């Protein structure tokens, strides 16, 4: 049986592969850089159409900027779930599983691209918001923001591997991912809690995603709906939970996929 060194070796192999492929899709990167400003405008104005006067409110502009920053983070990781189905269709997944590697490790290569998307797309969004909408960007808790980003990244990394396993046998997994990338962040804290009606505020805390998403926005606005130490502790706990859940589901669903012979989907 292979030990820890091999585990690290596999992780490094996945990371290196992810970076190499990312570097070879320059047209994609270029297209992302052109697309993001337009999508930022689209999202901002779609929400602010209801109250155009808020375009003059620095607080709301700042809050919505971090709201979309959160969306980029969640969306990037969610799309990495699609990678597993593609990998299965291209016959790569079968070979990877043959090596004894796990789905979580295989996902690492794609998740590196998600990190890079965030690393490039996040600052670009902040820049567009500041330059295009005149937002005075502000982070109320600068020491909590990196923790919030790390926790959210870890959570969505494991969550995306769960989603990937659940979706691997579907013909069009992108549909569910496309819906989930909007529903999850915008119903679980990406929209600043303080602007929501009290009934929704009361219900939102029951969403597990809230505890990893809310800190990203609240660390910027300074309006933590629940004390930060509690939210972040719960978020840490959720990361551990989702890690074990991803391991469990990977075993269960992989076995079921192996029984159905559904790796190649069709």
């Amino acid at each position, binding site marked *: 049986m292979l030990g820890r060194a091999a585990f690290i070796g*596999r992780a490094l192999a996945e990371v290196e592969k992810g970076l*190499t492929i990312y570097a070879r899709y320059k047209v994609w990167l270029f297209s992302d850089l052109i697309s993001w400003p337009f999508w930022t405008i689209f999202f901002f104005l779609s929400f602010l159409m209801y109250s155009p006067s808020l375009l003059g409110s620095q607080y709301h502009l700042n809050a919505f900027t971090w709201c979309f920053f959160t969306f980029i983070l969640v969306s990037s990781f969610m799309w990495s779930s699609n990678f597993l189905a593609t990998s299965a269709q*291209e016959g*790569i997944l079968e*070979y990877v*599983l043959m*090596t*004894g*590697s796990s789905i979580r490790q295989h996902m690492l290569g794609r998740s590196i691209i998600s990190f890079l998307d965030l690393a490039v797309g996040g600052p670009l969004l902040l820049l567009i918001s500041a330059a295009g909408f005149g937002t005075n960007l502000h982070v109320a808790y600068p020491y909590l923001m990196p923790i919030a980003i790390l926790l959210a990244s870890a959570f969505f990394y494991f969550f995306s591997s769960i989603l990937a396993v659940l979706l691997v046998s579907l013909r069009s997994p992108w549909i569910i991912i496309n819906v989930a990338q909007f529903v999850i962040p915008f119903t679980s804290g990406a929209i600043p809690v303080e602007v929501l009606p009290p009934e929704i505020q009361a219900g939102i805390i029951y969403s597990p995603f809230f505890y990893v998403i809310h800190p990203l926005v609240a660390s910027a606005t300074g309006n933590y709906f629940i004390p930060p130490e509690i939210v972040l502790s719960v978020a840490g706990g959720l990361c551990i939970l989702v890690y074990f859940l991803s391991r469990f589901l990977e075993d269960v669903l992989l076995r079921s996929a192996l029984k159905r012979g559904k790796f190649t989907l069709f």
Partner: protein
Amino acid sequence: MKAIACEGLRKHYRVKVRRGFFNHEYSVIKALDDVSLEVERGVIFSLVGPNGAGKTTMVKVLSTLLIPDAGRAEVGGYDVVRQANRVREIIGLVLAPDKGFYARLTGLENLIYYGRLYGLSKEESTRRAKELLDLTGLGEDGMRLFEEYSLGMRAKLSIAKALINKPEIVFLDEPTIGLDPLSARRIRQLIKDLAAKGMTVFMTSHNMWEVENLSNTVTVIKSGRIVAVGSPSELKERLKLSYRIEVEIIADKAPDMNQPVSIGERGYPVVTMTTNKPSEDLVRVIDEIRGMGYLIGMVRVQEPSLEEVLTQVLSR
């Protein structure tokens, strides 16, 4: 201990049959139906049969990628379901030879990637990958992106990948499909060399000539059931397939003989016969010709091919 042993393997699929725009019905395909077989260590074992007979399903079950509905199988002494990870460590696999690699990585990078997943260090993996690129004849093409590869190059890379972890047993699902004659010959030689070094090769192929020349054991599968097992010569013998014998007589006209005589390509009479006892019948005919005082120009004995074996077995 056998390299591969399986007993009572069964795998049925339920498939949707479409009728027009909206209608469909289900039917059951018996991909494997009570399959039992054993493969000795260090041999080349071939599984042959028509399309959809269950060959790839068998390879997938034995390589831990598909859990059977019933029955059990051991590869290298490990159970393919309960000890799947153990099995994976000791086997190499080629499935569809044109798939399984990242399009935007080079052949070399793809091999190094898989080598590292098998637990090799980066240096070790690179060295092994280069070695395998040379062995399979890809050489410098290893530096090109996989998406630029021809089908033959992809097939070679698949075989290289199957060997990256120095496996004890390799499963090759149609390894020479799409290869040019020289490349196919190179791969066949490689397969022979691997077996000579003690590796067990389990392969499927539609090229009967290749199977006949490479295999120690051939198994014929039809609709998920094994219908014949043996070495190529055993199978021919068991089916009592006839040899074709031609004896050319140096004479101006056809002599009066017990066998039919026709005029051959060189203009001499040729005795032609089909027999299950080639040695005895050949001696008898030669004696008869010599007894009549004629010289013999040429003797040709044509062995029945494995293709004939397959045709006979499958048409039953």
